[in-house]
């Protein structure tokens, strides 16, 4: 798993590549939350286009960041989810809370 954090205007982009499971979701959560607290962005974009595997821990990561951002009045957008990653986000109802960016 690899995480790149990019700031663009007042939006934080979290570009994740590789596998998201319980083992590395813990690391992701800590790094992204630290940046949210420091930057207080209006929006967080989670880019999952490079994610090759994700289980419910990845879903927990997305919903957890929804809560972090809601706490400072910001929004979360998810983009690039494909295959089973997308299936998990769809079936959990996550898109009722986070926006889906279509490109």
């Amino acid at each position, binding site marked *: 798993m690899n995480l790149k954090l990019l700031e663009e205007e007042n939006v934080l982009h979290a570009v994740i590549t590789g596998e998201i499971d319980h083992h590395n979701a813990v690391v992701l959560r800590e790094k992204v939350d630290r940046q949210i607290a420091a930057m207080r962005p209006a929006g967080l974009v989670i880019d999952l286009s490079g994610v090759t595997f994700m289980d419910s821990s990845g879903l927990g990561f997305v919903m957890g960041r929804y809560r972090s951002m809601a706490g400072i009045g910001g929004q979360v957008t998810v983009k690039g989810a494909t295959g*089973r990653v997308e299936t998990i986000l769809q079936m959990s109802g996550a898109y009722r809370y986070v926006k889906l960016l279509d490109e």
Partner: protein
Amino acid sequence: MKTVNFVRMTLPAKSVNEAYARVAAAALASQVDPTIEQMADIKTAVSEAVTNAIVHAYRGQEGGLVYITMRLMEDGSFIVSVRDRGCGIGDVRQAREPCFTTAPSEERSGMGFSIMEAFMDKLQVRSAPGRGTTVTMTKRLGR
């Protein structure tokens, strides 16, 4: 039904082993030429079951073990069972409900069993409080 091949392994209940378990499952399943989707389904379901054993079964306990048995059957199906000797589940039916979780503060969403059920053909959960849990899943492989 005849077992064509099998793997048995015992792993310490450490999160670093989640990836090991799902990769091992995919490696065994790959012997019968599954589709990419079927491989992804197996990896995800095994990851869910093993993660549950690690985060729920041995909560606050040191030295817990996760026992995994995987079989390839004559008819091309893949059967995996994930067993722990942890705290067990009092009400299995409730635990299997979508969105039911006992660990919301740890960013769990209660979707693990629903994912296992959706991605595999069969899911069986046996559990006894104080003794442990066995999750057995079957997936038919091939095109």
